[in-house]
Structures are given as structure tokens and as C-alpha cells.
């Protein structure tokens, strides 16, 4: 009887946080050996639903059934005992511990006199061998003795998977697992997941990327505003239909842009080096140029120096050596304020931490970089009426949806918050714009808006350095693309000749240029 019951059935799950209905009567079924995608934009309720399943959040209503049996899950501990494993988007690994230690954490009694042999780890090698066995059985290639801090992001993700497998899961949840991977690592991950599914493991994959749904899943459930808006067998749907379901209207999946007309170099970076606290070279002799009227895309996996590059240009971080020149003035040794005044503006990667003061009203956030000047300050006193009037014009021009300029910016949606940042940075017509992860966490509509604003800025003659870990975004917007790997530029391609495969290899640190040159020489012979 229970043979026919699905591995997992969620029935009518609802959950609200304050006035927000995060999950509204959600039902879902996953069979044994099935790969099921949970598709939806940020804020659609995917993570809440999975946190309920993993015992991190309690639902207001609804039931959870595993193999036909009703279960109540109050803690991750219970979820693990029921055979549910979760690979979080931000890895839940302790960097200072080894792979083996991370895997066995909490799998045995902490300190029990009756089961002393299990509580005490006399022989580290025995434990490493045990973990190594699991690694080998599933063909995952991880050294159990390695310290997690020394592993690449892709390897860390495999440790998370090993952690779940070691605990004997039969339902594995992965939350946006490809966000931090190169295209090749993604391919490997999907191969692994398919082999798990073939051996009977059920997998739920949370994503907002349509092509991943098409590439890996058997079935897909689409969430929007906390509700299920569609269930499809993957074979019977396509990206266009899914996009429509996810967003709730017809969308264009491509960005329309005209050819760039690059002018003189507006931003010149010469042998820039940034050495971190631990003597690692976060940026290593990096040189690049951005011309007026062009978008230079910087591709790369997160954590390869993107942050440092943006912060060094905008004066937040002091480089160890090298020069940065914008509009023929060196920016080295200048304060962030002086650099902004010199026409170099910044869309920071984390708008909530660096881009905005969340508790401040929308209006004050618009004048964060100019508040102490006329007309916003006269004779040392702030002029609220001038600030509000200015904010009103920007709210209209940049289509910020807010009932009032006096509302704290924290109350706006992510997309509208980003429009406030865009308005502040673009209104002065900066000659150089450093845009770091400009659409991170935004929905499709807001993303479209930001892309159009960046292209308009380019066409008005601005130089734009677009730093993004979303390869599709870099490909769609850039006129030229450089690839950042371990603080160095490992390759450059022109925007219209770029392909994801080639850039993906470079993101993993493979030197394509040299290979291509050899290949070319071979052809000539």
C-alpha cells in the first residue's frame, strides 16, 4: 500500500510572516527517484516551503506525508531522522574543520558513557576512511582530510551532498545549487544528481533558472506570490511557458541592444594588486580599460576578486599597488566621496548593506552623496523641502513604486530599492559606472528595467564596468567580456562572439587563449 504512496506529499501548506502570506495552500508530490524542480522568482515562497519541510519553520496549516505516513517536523534533527537532507544555498559547513569532521558532526551521541566508543574519536583515520567510503561509493571526488576552508565552492557543495548521503537521506533538497558554480561544474552536478535519482533518491531542486529546469527535472511546480500557479511534466512544457507562469505575464527572454560606439578610454586600470590580510593576492596585476560608450562585462565565479575590484575603484579599499585612472585623473589615495565627485559612480553588490541606509526615508537615500551641498544644505542646515522635491522628480523618472518619499526605503521591494540606488548614481550622468551584481535578487521585471537603464547610460556615452556572476547577464549586456579568475584576467572576448561554453572554461581557470592560439597555428600549417 505504502509502495504506491509518493515519497513526499505536501498538502495545503500555508505560512504567513506578519501580513505577508509566504505560502498559501501549497500542495506538491514527489515520487521516489524523481527530480522535481520548484521554480519561482525571489520571494515566491520556495525557500519558506523547503524550510518548513526541513523543520526550520513551522507551517500555520497543512500536512506533510512521507511514503504515505503523516509526519510533523519540528527541527532539522527530526527531518534528518526522517531521511530528509538539505543543501543550503549558503553552505552550512564549518570552514575550520576538515571534510570528515563536517560530515560526522551530530551523527553520533555527543558524550555518552554507555556508547563511549562512538562518542570518542580516538582514531581520526578510521573516521576519514568511513567518510571516504561514502565519497567513493557515489563517485564524488573529495579528500576527507582536507580543511573545508581550502576547498573550492564546487567542492564544498559536494561536501554538503556527502553530508546528506552519510546520514542516509532518501529525499534531497538543493536550494539554488548552481548559483555559485561554473557551467562545467553545473554539468557535473546534474550528472551526479541524475545518477542519484536512478538509484531511487528523490530530489527537489529550487531554482529560478529556466534552462536548468528543462535540463534536469522530470516534473516542475511553479510558485508565484506563495501559490502554486502551475504543475507540468518537463517533457510537455517549454521555457517560454514556464517564464510566463513564473512572472505572470509574457516576457522577453533576450535583451535588445544596438551596437556600441566606444569612444576614448574613460577608466584605465594598470597592474592593480590587492593583497588580503592572509597575504593572499585578491587582485593580481590586473589591467583593463573601459571606453566611453561601452559596457565591459567582468565574468567569473563569485569570490575571484570581483568585490575587491569594485571596492578598489570606488576608493573603499586601498590597493596594495597599481594605478586606477578615470578621466585622466588617478584615483589612488582619494576618498570614496572624492572619487564619486570625479564622476565615478557605484552600484554596490549588496544594496542593503552598502547601497542604502534602510531605516532612512527614500528621499534621504537619494541625497546620500550630496546632502551637504546646496540646494540640500544651506548655511549648514538641511533643506527638507528641496530634498523632497528632488526625490519626487527621481521617483517619477526612475519609476520607483513608493507611496511617499518619506517612507523608509526598507519598506520597498528589492526592485524598487535598486531603482533608488540607480536613480542616485545615474542622475549625475557619471562618466564611469561600476555596476556590481546590479540585478542580484531582482525579479524578471525589475531585471529588465535595470538592463534597459544600463544600456541607456551606455548610449548616452557612459563607460560601464559590469561585474556579474550571472553569465547570461554578462553575455546579454556586454560589448566586451573579460573573465576574472583568482584575481587575474584569464581571457577576453568580444561581446558578439562570446559563447557560454568557452567563458565557462575560463571561469574555471582554464587558459583558452593560449590553446586557441596553438590551435590556430596548427590550422595555418
Amino acid at each position: 500500500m505504502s509502495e504506491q504512496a509518493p515519497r513526499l506529499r505536501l498538502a495545503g501548506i500555508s505560512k504567513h510572516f506578519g501580513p505577508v502570506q509566504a505560502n498559501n495552500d501549497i500542495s506538491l508530490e514527489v515520487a521516489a527517484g524523481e527530480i522535481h524542480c520548484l521554480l519561482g522568482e525571489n520571494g515566491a515562497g520556495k525557500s519558506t516551503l523547503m524550510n518548513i519541510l526541513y523543520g526550520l519553520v513551522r507551517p500555520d496549516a497543512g500536512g506533510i506525508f512521507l511514503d504515505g505516513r503523516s509526519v510533523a517536523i519540528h527541527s532539522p534533527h527530526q527531518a534528518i531522522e526522517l531521511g530528509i537532507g538539505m543543501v543550503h544555498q549558503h553552505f552550512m559547513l564549518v570552514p575550520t574543520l576538515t571534510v570528515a569532521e563536517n560530515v560526522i558532526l551530530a551523527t553520533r551521541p555527543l558524550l555518552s558513557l554507555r556508547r563511549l566508543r562512538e562518542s570518542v574519536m580516538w582514531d581520526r583515520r578510521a573516521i576519514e576512511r568511513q567518510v571516504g567510503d561514502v565519497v567513493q561509493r557515489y563517485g564524488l571526488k573529495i579528500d576527507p582530510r582536507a580543511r573545508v576552508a581550502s576547498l573550492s565552492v564546487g567542492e564544498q557543495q559536494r561536501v554538503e551532498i556527502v553530508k546528506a548521503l552519510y546520514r542516509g537521506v532518501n529525499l534531497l533538497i538543493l536550494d539554488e545549487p548552481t548559483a555559485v558554480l561554473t557551467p562545467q561544474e553545473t554539468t557535473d552536478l546534474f550528472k551526479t544528481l541524475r545518477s542519484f535519482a536512478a538509484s531511487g533518491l528523490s530530489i527537489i531542486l529550487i531554482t529560478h533558472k529556466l534552462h536548468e529546469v528543462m535540463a534536469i527535472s522530470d516534473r516542475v511546480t511553479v510558485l508565484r506570490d506563495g501559490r502554486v500557479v502551475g504543475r507540468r511534466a518537463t517533457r510537455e512544457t517549454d521555457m517560454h511557458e514556464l517564464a510566463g507562469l513564473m512572472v505572470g505575464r509574457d516576457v522577453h527572454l533576450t535583451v535588445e541592444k544596438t551596437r556600441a560606439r566606444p569612444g576614448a578610454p574613460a577608466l584605465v586600470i594598470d597592474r592593480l594588486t590587492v593583497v588580503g590580510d592572509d597575504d593572499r593576492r585578491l587582485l593580481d596585476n590586473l589591467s583593463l580599460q573601459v571606453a566611453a560608450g561601452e559596457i565591459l562585462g567582468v565574468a567569473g565565479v563569485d569570490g575571484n576578486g570581483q568585490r575587491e575590484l569594485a571596492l578598489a575603484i570606488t576608493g573603499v579599499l586601498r590597493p596594495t599597488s597599481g594605478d586606477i585612472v578615470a578621466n585622466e585623473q588617478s584615483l589612488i589615495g582619494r576618498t570614496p566621496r572624492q572619487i564619486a565627485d570625479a564622476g565615478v559612480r557605484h552600484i554596490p553588490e549588496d544594496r542593503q548593506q552598502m547601497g542604502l541606509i534602510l531605516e532612512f526615508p527614500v528621499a534621504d537615500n537619494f541625497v546620500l552623496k550630496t546632502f551637504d551641498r546646496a540646494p540640500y544644505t544651506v548655511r549648514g542646515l538641511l533643506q527638507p523641502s528641496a530634498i523632497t522635491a528632488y526625490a519626487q522628480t527621481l521617483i517619477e523618472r526612475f519609476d520607483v513604486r513608493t507611496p511617499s518619499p518619506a517612507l523608509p526605503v526598507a519598506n520597498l521591494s528589492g526592485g524598487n530599492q535598486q531603482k533608488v540606488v540607480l536613480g542616485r548614481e545615474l542622475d549625475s550622468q557619471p562618466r564611469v559606472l561600476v555596476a556590481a551584481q546590479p540585478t542580484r535578487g531582482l525579479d524578471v521585471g525589475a531585471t529588465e528595467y535595470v538592463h534597459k537603464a544600463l544600456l541607456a547610460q551606455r548610449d548616452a556615452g557612459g563607460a560601464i564596468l559590469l561585474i556579474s556572476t550571472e553569465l547570461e547577464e554578462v553575455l546579454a549586456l556586454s560589448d566586451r567580456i573579460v573573465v576574472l579568475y583568482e584575481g587575474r584576467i584569464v581571457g577576453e572576448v568580444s561581446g558578439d562572439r562570446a559563447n557560454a561554453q568557452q567563458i565557462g572554461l575560463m571561469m574555471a581557470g582554464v587558459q583558452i587563449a593560449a590553446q586557441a592560439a596553438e590551435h590556430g597555428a596548427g590550422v595555418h600549417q
Partner: protein
Amino acid sequence: MEWMIGLQALLQATVRMAAPLTFTAVGETYGERAGVINIGLEGLMLIGAVAAYAVAFASGSIWLGVLAAGLAAMVFGMLFGVVTITLGANQIVAGAALNLVGLGLSSFIYRAFFGTVTGRAIQPLESVKIPLLSQIPVLGPVLFEQNMLVYLALLLAPAAALVLNRTMLGLAIRSVGEHPKATATAGLSVIGLRYGAVAFGALLAGVGGAYLSVAYANQFVENMVAGRGFIALAIVVFGRWSPMGALWASLLFGFTFALQLRLQAANVQIAYQFLQILPYVATIVAMILLRGQSAQPKALGAPYTERA
């Protein structure tokens, strides 16, 4: 051979002065590895000192006094836990408050119960010679002719290191101070682990304080801990958050205490006030030398709230 005897006395005093620091610092090492910094050690030691003295005086048993000291300090440690772990208050502020409570309460209790008593000294904890081992020249008397609490302190550090590094419990404690959320998602209770570590740390701080009153001075004196609680905090850093490191660092600081006593006794032509500041100057110098250390647990001092 006179210098040999002098050296032996100096080292013997070093170990004796190191013991209370070892208790307190090893306990605090556990708390900090679990992610909770308790700067109220000074206050806990004072509570331990007065509790041990009062109970030992009334019962005539030093060991009952030590037990009472540990329990009393643990009660206050749990209060600190409620404020910082459950309610998520700032650990530094709560710890500072604990110091004030400890200082005020220990003085109050002492004056209330012993203000009029004469002959307040108690029977000292006597030293126990370990057969054979204490015959070794110099090292014998230094290590094997001490009181039982000193032996306990010397054994505590390796035992604490063993539990921390080689058991599932130790692994859990090390995890919760580095990445509490990872620990929670692995199925452990962050709150439970932190309470346990804080209670253990408070218990040992109480014993460290008890040592001062019942095994060293044989009486209680107001504010007798004299900054040792703060020195223990420095020792945790100096010992790189490891129990054995804490033991070595305690011996080093114990040496500065012993040295200033010997120099005073030897009638060196330096004002004794300058000699007395030696351990404290050593603490400051050590902290300057250790700036920018990265062995510190990542989540140290950050309250943990369960939120998805």
C-alpha cells in the same frame, strides 16, 4: 647551591599562582569556543572565593567550600546565559554587569557574615607529596609537592583538550562557535551547547576563585581576585583558544606573579608598587604582541537567533 633553592621556590610559586588562572582560562576557553565571551570572570571568581570561604569556614571542609564555589558561580553563569543566549543581549555589557555584581555581592556577604568575627583564617589546604616523583631534584618539589587543587588544575587542561579535540561533544562545541547555523542544521541545539559551555566555564571560574581564598590566602579579602579574571581572558587569547595553550599561558603569567613576590622578598631596590604591576604589564604586552590573531572563533560574541 643557594640559587638552586631560590629557583625551586620561584618555580613552585609559579605553579601555585598559575592554578587559579588555569581553572578560569580553561573554562573560558570552552565558552569562547562555543561562541560566548564572558568578561564577567572576575565577578564569578569573587563569588567563588567568598562562597568557598564561607562554606569552608562554617563546615570545616575545604572541599565542600570548593563545591559550593563551583555551584554558586554556575548559578550566576546561568543567569548570564539567560541574558546573552536566550535573550540575545550584548555579551560584553552583560559580562561587565556580572563583574559589578560579583564585586558587590562578595564584599556584602563577607561583611554581613564575617564583619564581626575574629580569627577568620581557615585551615589551609595542605600540600600532598607524591611518593618517588617528589624526590626528583628541582622538578619534584615544583610539580609533585603541591596541594590537591594544583594537581587538579594540571590534569584539567589535558583532559579538557582531549574532550574538545577528540570527542563528538568537542566537535559540536568547536562547530557552534564557528558557524552556529551549520551546527543547527546538522541537528544540534545551539542554545543547549552554549548553555552547557557557559555553565562549565562559570563552574571553573568559581573553582579558580575558591582556590584563592581556601588554598592560597586561607581567608577572604575584598576584591582579592585583583584582576585575575581579566588576565584569564587574555590567557585564552594567548593560548590560542586551546586548553593546553591556556595551561602554558597560565604558567607564564603565574611566573610573573611569582617573580614579583620573590623580588619583593629579596628586597630589590625598586618600589614594590612597580613590582606588583608586573603581571598586568605582561598582559598588556601580550595583547599587543597578539594583535590581529585569526584563531578566534568566527561567531564569538554574536547572539544566535533561530530564524529562517
